[in-house]
């Protein structure tokens, strides 16, 4: 019995391969977009874990030089002799074929851990291999591949290190970095005992510094990954609309078969079990396909996402995706969940299906619309929830809840809104044909509502995200111009080098760029020094300022704080903040789009008084001459390395490139979501086509040619897409506002002014129109070529 019943049910797919393809494609696309995003997130998280565990030093306090970037080896020797438990570290940038990598030199005998060790084998032998000339250079395979052949050392690939980081024995690193006899910092392995001589006695040129906040990366990037996950969820929802439509129609078309099977003696439980098994098999097949596609998608997007994470947060993430069990399982799980969600309504109907019920595919399409009012009510509730969430909710979770309320609310309101608009147009129509076209379009709304809702979500997401990105871009460009006002930026190896080179430069102003780690109101952050100069007075991007802000800053009377800190702590000019335990007045708040951490700016003199130990090695130069020529002269005549001299144009180009790559992944997801929505329309039109003949056959009989009917069908698709795009515009703008004013503030700590770009909307509207026309083209072509015999059969069936 089971075999025969299964064969009868499954034969439906053999006769409707397009519908099967739609269902599988819908589920696979939904799974692919979700899995792709999860794969990217999993890769990034694994990378953060590697970064956190690799050098196991980030939680150790440090000893660093009071001046310059390095300390003499003799300080280390003196400390060890005095009984201090410290481990030496050398760190610098090593040039790769393309870009550079961070090279960390460790002493394997004193370092807490050496990444890539301890994977079995003889530890003594491994130690010998690590240190014996020419020495091992350990790194991620991607990083080692970029190492020039001229760099001497045995390459040892290890997944234990993040891309962009290399580890070597301290002697090897010193040789490669040209820092023989020097160290970068010392790790304090144990708190010094009471009876040890104090640091000031043994090594007065060193100072203690807090642990490096490397493992902040996970916290900082969390919001970025949440954004990606939200996009993945949106894409998943759009894909589900497709699957739901295909499952629903397939169920309705098989209602007759199910009724016949039951009349012929197949129990309901057996039919339900067969349909469940079918859904499971389809979900697994589509899920596997989706996970595979997701992997491809992740591989394509990851390089841009990795660049974003590096650029925005300094988080090291590789550019390639590893296959991980976690996201495979998650992808298949989502496919099963999707199939269950898409099938739930059909199973509910099956339970209530009378054996005597008639087959009603057309009624199914209309039933989709019967819930229109209920859906519209749910939509209104969703929209009404948005202000409530914003009023009483907090943080990123509230931001995303508001986004969900807005998008789902708008989607649920769409069918009723479109129907109302089309009804109004129908009333205004003058000709009989015009009336029919509007009425016919309205009649199609229920059957197409899921696909149109998917289109609305995709368009609104596109408008919202592109408005956010464009607003960000415009603000960022202006901010960059003001922030990078100086023509040339120099980075010296030591204050002594600076003192030797600077007097020879013909600059109208030499502005030190000095900073230090500090405790900002209980959280780690950076404090910068700012010279009193017209460059800053004119250009610095202040958002809020108290009276005589620049004069008071120069006089050491207070601080400027960045927007992130101001928003997080609710600061405005006149408030008092604690920096390293000292109270300071907030003089102004400035825009800072470079990082999500807190920052403060002190007047140069005040900073120098507070931190006399910090030597000035970085400078911004105001030049009247050609910056490029001056840069070349500094390299040629003063012996500066090219990486010590950066001109404004290069810095701006680099910043812009980082920015563009930041949003490349978002752009790609935007396009994909729109493509999925276009596909949803295509499949809906295709599956509804068989139900369409009875509606157009009478018109054909009355004298409209098939070609004209097909053109009218194309026009109807365009009409519905245009209506949806029109309704998507306010939704998209509301979405942009939520992203800029709520989500960004919660995620990054900065608020951006919203700017509108009507040309982008027009382009997107045209894209939606083209997508809908393309989706409608094949069904229209089929209608244009349908044989008169098939149209005549409509009348024969009607008898």
């Amino acid at each position: 019995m089971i075999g025969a019943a299964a064969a009868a049910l499954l034969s439906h797919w053999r006769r409707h391969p397009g519908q099967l393809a739609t269902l599988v494609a819908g589920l696979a696309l939904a799974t692919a977009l979700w899995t792709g995003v999860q794969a990217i997130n999993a890769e990034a998280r694994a990378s953060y874990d590697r970064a956190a565990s690799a050098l196991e030093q980030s939680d150790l306090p440090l000893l660093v030089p009071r001046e310059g970037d390095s300390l003499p080896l003799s300080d280390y020797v003196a400390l060890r002799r005095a009984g201090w438990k410290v481990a030496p570290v050398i760190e610098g940038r090593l040039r790769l074929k393309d870009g550079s990598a961070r090279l960390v030199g460790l002493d394997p005998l004193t370092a807490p851990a050496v990444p890539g060790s301890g994977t079995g084998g003889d530890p003594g032998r491994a130690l010998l291999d690590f240190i014996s000339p020419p020495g091992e250079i350990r790194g991620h395979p991607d990083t080692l591949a970029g190492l020039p052949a001229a760099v001497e050392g045995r390459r040892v690939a290890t997944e234990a290190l993040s891309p962009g980081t290399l580890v070597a024995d301290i002697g090897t690193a010193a040789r490669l970095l040209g820092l023989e006899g020097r160290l970068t910092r010392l790790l304090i392995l144990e708190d010094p005992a009471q009876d040890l001589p104090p640091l000031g006695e043994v090594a007065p040129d060193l100072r203690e510094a807090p642990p490096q906040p490397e493992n902040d990366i996970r916290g900082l990037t969390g919001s970025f990954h949440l954004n990606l996950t939200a996009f993945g969820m949106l894409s998943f929802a759009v894909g589900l609309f497709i699957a739901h439509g295909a499952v629903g129609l397939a169920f309705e078309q098989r209602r007759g078969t199910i009724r016949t099977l039951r009349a012929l003696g197949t129990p309901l439980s057996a039919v339900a079990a067969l349909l469940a098994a079918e859904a499971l098999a389809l979900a697994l097949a589509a899920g596997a396909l989706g996970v595979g596609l997701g992997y491809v998608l992740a591989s394509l997007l990851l390089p841009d996402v990795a660049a974003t994470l590096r650029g925005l947060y300094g988080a090291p993430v590789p550019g390639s995706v590893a296959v991980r069990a976690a996201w495979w399982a998650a992808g298949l799980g989502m496919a099963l969940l999707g199939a269950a969600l898409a099938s739930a309504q059909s199973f509910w109907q099956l339970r209530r299906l009378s054996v005597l019920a008639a087959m009603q595919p057309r009624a199914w399409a209309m039933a989709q619309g019967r819930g229109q009012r209920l859906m519209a009510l749910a939509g209104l509730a969703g929209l009404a929830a948005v202000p409530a969430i914003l009023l009483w909710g907090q943080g990123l979770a509230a931001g995303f809840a508001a986004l969900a309320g807005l998008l789902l609310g708008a989607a649920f309101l769409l069918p009723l809104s479109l129907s109302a608009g089309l009804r109004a147009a129908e009333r205004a129509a003058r000709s009989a044909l015009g009336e029919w076209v509007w009425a016919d379009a309205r009649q199609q709304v229920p059957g197409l509502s899921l696909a149109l809702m998917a289109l609305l979500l995709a368009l609104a997401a596109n408008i919202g995200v592109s408005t956010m990105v464009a607003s960000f871009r415009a603000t960022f460009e202006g901010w960059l111009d003001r922030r990078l006002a100086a023509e040339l930026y120099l980075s010296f190896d030591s204050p002594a080098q600076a003192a030797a080179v600077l007097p020879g430069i013909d600059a109208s102003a030499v502005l030190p760029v000095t900073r230090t780690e500090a405790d900002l109101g209980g959280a780690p952050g950076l404090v910068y020094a700012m010279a009193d100069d017209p460059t800053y007075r004119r250009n610095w991007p202040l958002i809020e300022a108290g009276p005589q802000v620049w004069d008071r800053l120069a006089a050491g009377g207070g601080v400027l704080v960045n927007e992130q800190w101001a928003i997080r702590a609710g600061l405005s000019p006149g408030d008092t903040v604690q920096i390293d335990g000292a109270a300071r007045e907030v003089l102004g708040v400035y825009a800072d789009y470079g990082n999500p951490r807190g920052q403060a700016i002190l007047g140069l003199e005040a900073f120098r008084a507070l931190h006399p130990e910090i030597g000035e090695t970085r400078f911004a130069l105001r030049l009247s001459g050609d910056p490029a020529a001056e840069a070349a002269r500094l390299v040629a005549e003063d012996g500066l390395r090219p990486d010590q001299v950066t001109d404004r144009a290069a810095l701006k180009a680099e910043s812009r490139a980082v920015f563009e790559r930041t949003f490349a992944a978002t752009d790609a997801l935007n396009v994909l979501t729109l493509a999925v929505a276009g596909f949803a329309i295509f499949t809906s039109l295709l599956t509804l086509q068989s139900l369409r003949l009875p509606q157009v056959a009478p018109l054909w009989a009355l004298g409209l040619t098939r070609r004209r009917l097909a053109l009218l069908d194309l026009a109807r698709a365009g009409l519905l897409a245009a209506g949806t795009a029109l309704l998507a515009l306010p939704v998209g703008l509301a979405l942009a506002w939520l992203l800029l004013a709520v989500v960004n503030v919660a995620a990054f700590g900065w608020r951006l002014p919203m700017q509108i770009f009507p040309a982008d909307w027009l382009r997107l509207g045209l894209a939606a129109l083209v997508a809908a026309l393309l989706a409608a083209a094949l069904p229209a072509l089929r209608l244009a070529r349908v044989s008169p015999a098939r149209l005549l059969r409509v009348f024969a069936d009607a008898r």
Partner: protein
Amino acid sequence: MLLEATDIARRFPGEAGPVTVLDGVSLSLAQGETLALTGESGSGKSTLLTLLAGLDRPDRGEIRLKGTAFGPLKEPELAAIRRGRIGLVFQQFNLVPSLSVAQNIALQARLAGRHDRDWCAALAERLGLSAHLAKYPETLSGGQQQRVAVARTLAARPEVILADEPTGNLDEATGDAVLAEMLALVAETGAGLVMVTHSGRLAGKLSRRLHLARGRLA
């Protein structure tokens, strides 16, 4: 007795309270007997047929097939009886559109677990369907589709055949031809037949006739 219905009553909810469709109907069918159920539209003929098929349950009364009462049976048990012992022929044919003619003919026999390839082929031959076995139902005429439905029913060799206006969608000549074949095959297999029909002319071709009026046997 092959099939017995005793004091059957069936009511359905209506706008102005329950509507009684059948009220105290009793009938019996012997092995090899052919019985016509006639009556006006709404007299309860089709409702009685669905009750006899175990597709619906009476509000009162009992139906027995060779002594097995339907009342205490659960849905899977009733389904097993329909699958193995009863054959249904519908006015609307109710073929599975995605199965070929050959697959449709074999469907119930396969569900019942007694598919006989030769018997199916013989039925197709007798009903003039041999040339259409690979086709799908939508490509056949109404008469051909009804022949497929008859063949599907007979292929499972049921003990009772219940036919609801099996020629109602066919022209007179085609209807007569289909009925003649059906009666001949029923006689050959020894099954009992209950056929609902509007037509007194067709009813006259069966061995016995019962007339329903307003839910009661006249």
